[in-house]
């Protein structure tokens, strides 16, 4: 049937997961997950992403919801939205982090920890998650240095 480019697919399949009961808007959830994939280098510059319609149909959401997520990523410089070609991944150099960005990150992280603790997650579980994220960051760094 459809040809899915197997070369693009890493060992773990790329999935977009949304939670309709979450307080985070659906377009934000989609944008966050695609951004995470882009940061991890799962897509090369120039690669075409699935169409807005394909993702909207598969998730059972409105076309505009996915389009909004793509637009946000385009504004951040991750994607180029070209008529007829769809969403294309752009090569994006990481800007130097400002002290302001670092403080904003720390604040968001603390807010997030408070939120998940309020939801019942134990400090040990939170720590495990942190360790996993940290490990994947180190792996990413190693991969980048090899390139």
């Amino acid at each position, binding site marked *: *049937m459809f040809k*899915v480019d197997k070369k*693009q697919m890493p060992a773990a*399949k*790329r999935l*977009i997961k949304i939670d309709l009961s979450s307080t985070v808007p659906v377009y934000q959830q989609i944008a966050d997950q695609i951004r995470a994939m882009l940061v991890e280098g799962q897509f090369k510059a120039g690669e075409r992403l*699935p169409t807005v*319609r394909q993702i909207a149909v598969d998730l059972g*959401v409105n*076309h505009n919801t996915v389009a909004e997520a793509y637009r946000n990523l385009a504004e951040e410089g991750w994607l180029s939205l070209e008529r007829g070609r769809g969403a294309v991944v752009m090569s994006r150099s990481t800007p130097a982090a400002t002290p302001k960005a670092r403080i904003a990150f720390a604040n968001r992280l603390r807010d997030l920890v408070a939120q998940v603790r309020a939801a019942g997650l134990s400090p040990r579980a939170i720590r495990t998650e942190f360790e996993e994220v940290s490990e994947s960051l180190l792996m990413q760094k190693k991969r980048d240095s090899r390139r």
Partner: protein
Amino acid sequence: MIWLNVLHMSPIWTLVVLAMSSLEYLMPELSRPGVAFSTTVTEQFRRSDAHTRIVRRYRRGIVLSALAGLLVAMGGVEQIDAWSGPGAFTIQYLIFLVSFAIARASTAKYRTESDRVREAAFARREPPIMLALLVIAPLIAMCAALAWTYANWQLIPDPYPVHWGLNGQPDLWVQRTPLHVYGMLGLLAGVAAVLAFFGYGFLFWARRPDGTQERSWYRLPAGWIAIVLGAEYFVAASAMLPLGMDVHPVELLLLSLLAASSLCLIVIGPIGSRPPSRTNDYTPDGAWKLGIFYYNPDDAALFVEKRFGLGWTVNFGQTRAWILIGLALAPLGLGFAFVMSLTA
């Protein structure tokens, strides 16, 4: 006066009534594990005595609908004798609708919230060029037939055959007029265009969401596409018959295609390919009007799986659905006008 005459009955309508009521009877088994009478329920409820009672009552209604339909199809109601076929279909369907509505209302109190978490594979699907070509090939062939007819008008037989019996011999002729010749070709081209639209819709506007079950979900529309393609080729070949072309090899090919399509439906159709672990079809209960019609403008899918568990339905919340219905009705209307002109 009520009388029964087995010889008088319409065999096609009798078969239609029997096929429909059989499917409706089986419907509770065909639905997803988390759905009962178009309502989201727990799998435990599906195995409960309460559900069994509701199903038993619903099935009594279906048996009644089949009997009433057969009675009408056999000419049991003299007053509607001329319309006994469509009458049988209508009576059967109305009783089914009532039985379904009662079962749905009884199930409503066991309704549960559907899973609010959804996932989809994030991998680009490239358009299948060969399949797209297969979809449009009959349309191209029909355009060529129209051009051939225009260029070789004198070769068209007069009178012109427009209907064939089961033995393959023409049994209805009309005079060779532009209305009759181009009307017939135009009508069949319209039907082929609608089928091509359906084929395209199944390819690009139907849901295949579950990344982990990707392969089996790809198979789901394949059965339907095969059916639509088979029907499309059949329609296209039918249009060639009046032109006096030798279609015996084509007929053979068509029969093989139709047989293959039917096999596809049985082996890899919706029931065979649906992932058993998935209970969520990503459609909210509230969008199912009367439990049958799906209306959800916030769902980009044009085709969604029916909650009956067999087949697909259009999302009436999409403008494209209305275009599709318009396209489907236009050839039907033209066909009716054409048939009326033939009988006149």
